[in-house]
């Protein structure tokens, strides 16, 4: 479990804090989406989770290790993998397998185990056929999956992703999202994903919304993403399906249920094909 308690953060040299009094518990195996407008502090928050940044106030405790305590730094980095949005800027080596091996190499594992982890991680993201490829010959989505494998090879319990799909085309986005959901389901890796696509957040177990450095909403996607007026106050757009349901209700189809899944909404519309 990652316990974030009373965390505030202020960049050195800045007057006002970027994050104010954040309290949050992240459970093993959960899929959490973190939403918020530009500059709301999402990236800063992700860097607090693996100890790249240390809170100005409050504590971040990862499976019992406080990120304040420098002696656990490597353990925390291994437990909490962090992935950034631009795949090009996080691949270190010129060959896929060498890149994925980078993390385990840093842990000082024996070569045979490194090889095992590299092969496992690449097949977990469906890129096992690209062992010897240079990353610059791959598509954006493929590169990002290699980057995911690179983090995965450290065998983290939590994977924190800062807008992992924002640099990708729709196909790459789909690829990466599916990979993450499979990881969450099959390996039980907790996923903490920052995104500004509300549609992506709909797939999560829990949604947290940050605004001006504060947690302004937390709950299931259905609870949070249907608050259309609040969402626009927080600088976010409601999902299309929610807008559709709202519009239908306004026009008299009051028994249309709120849903985020387009198939469920379609089913409901079919049932209510006449006004009640």
């Amino acid at each position, binding site marked *: 479990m990652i316990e974030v308690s009373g965390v505030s953060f202020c960049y050195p040299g800045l007057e006002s804090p970027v994050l104010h009094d954040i309290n949050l518990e992240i459970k093993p195996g959960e899929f959490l989406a973190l939403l918020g407008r530009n500059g709301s502090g999402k990236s800063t928050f992700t860097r607090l989770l693996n100890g790249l940044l240390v809170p100005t106030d409050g504590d971040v405790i990862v499976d019992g290790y406080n990120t304040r305590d420098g002696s656990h730094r490597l353990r925390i980095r291994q437990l909490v993998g962090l992935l950034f949005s*631009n795949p090009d*800027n996080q691949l270190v080596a010129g060959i896929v397998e060498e890149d994925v091996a980078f*993390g*385990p190499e*840093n842990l000082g594992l024996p070569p045979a185990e*490194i090889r095992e982890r590299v092969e496992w991680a690449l097949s977990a993201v469906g890129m096992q056929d690209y062992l*010897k490829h240079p990353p610059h010959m791959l598509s954006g989505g493929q590169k990002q999956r290699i980057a995911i494998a690179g983090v995965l090879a*450290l065998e983290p319990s939590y994977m924190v992703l800062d807008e992992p799909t924002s640099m990708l085309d729709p196909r790459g986005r789909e690829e990466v999202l599916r990979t993450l959901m499979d990881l969450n389901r099959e390996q039980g890796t907790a996923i903490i994903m920052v995104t500004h696509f509300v549609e992506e957040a709909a797939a999560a177990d829990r949604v947290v919304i940050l605004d001006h450095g504060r947690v302004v909403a937390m709950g299931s996607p259905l609870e949070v993403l249907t608050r259309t007026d609040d969402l626009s106050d927080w600088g976010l757009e409601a999902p299309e399906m929610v807008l559709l349901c709202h519009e239908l209700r306004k026009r008299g189809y009051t028994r249309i249920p709120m849903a985020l899944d387009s198939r469920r909404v379609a089913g409901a519309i079919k049932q209510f094909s006449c006004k009640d």
Partner: protein
Amino acid sequence: MVNSFTFGQYIPGNSLVHSLDPRTKLFCVVIMMTAVLAVNTFIGVMITALFTGIFLVLTRVPVTIYLRGMRPLIILVVITAAFQLFLIPGEVLWRWWVFSITDNGIKMAALMSYRLFMVFVLAQLLTVTTSPLQLTDGLERILRPLARVGFPAHELAMIMTIALRFIPVFFEEGSKIILAQVSRGADFQGGWLKSARNLVAIMVPLFVRAFRRADDLALAMESRCYTGGEGRTRLHEIAMSRMDYLVMAATAALVPFIIVFRN
């Protein structure tokens, strides 16, 4: 842009030379380059040529690959040869206006062309059969003893690895910036002043982005538990085999010959 860059490009393979430890290859190539630069007799030339030839055959890479890599360097060889040919004093064999060719001139021109040519061939022999990563690993291991006196051996190797990884990224980005500027009406033809200005227009955004990348990369590496060279293991540990020692011994045996055949 990237594909035109073929001098010494790594060609994967399973030959004897490919499977040698990068340190062995570095050692042999350095010895052979020294030998090539030191010889000045016909027999010396023949011995070094034969030796290099054997190595080339053992790489099982077609000779055309090496020759293709040499193409842009031929001019350099020709110019060097021309200088030797016309400027070395000796017994004049042929004269026209201010140009004269001497017996020594011919000899030196042939020798210098041979030396330059062989240095390039040997450099290719190394890089064609050794991946950049093996090469940096080899260098790191050779320099490691110096790390004890504060020499940044690991850091140097890491810098080279990252530089090699980012060369294609920068090429791609450079072409994108050029395209973006052309599509907004930039004209890349014209005099040198204009070319210089155009170059600035490309280099500035390229550098700004490079610094951003460097920041991101540092964070990503730290997040993946990187703390420097200490305690780091490798997926492919390089290791010397009996064959490595054999090849090194054979190359070292070249040294006395070269000394003997230096008049």
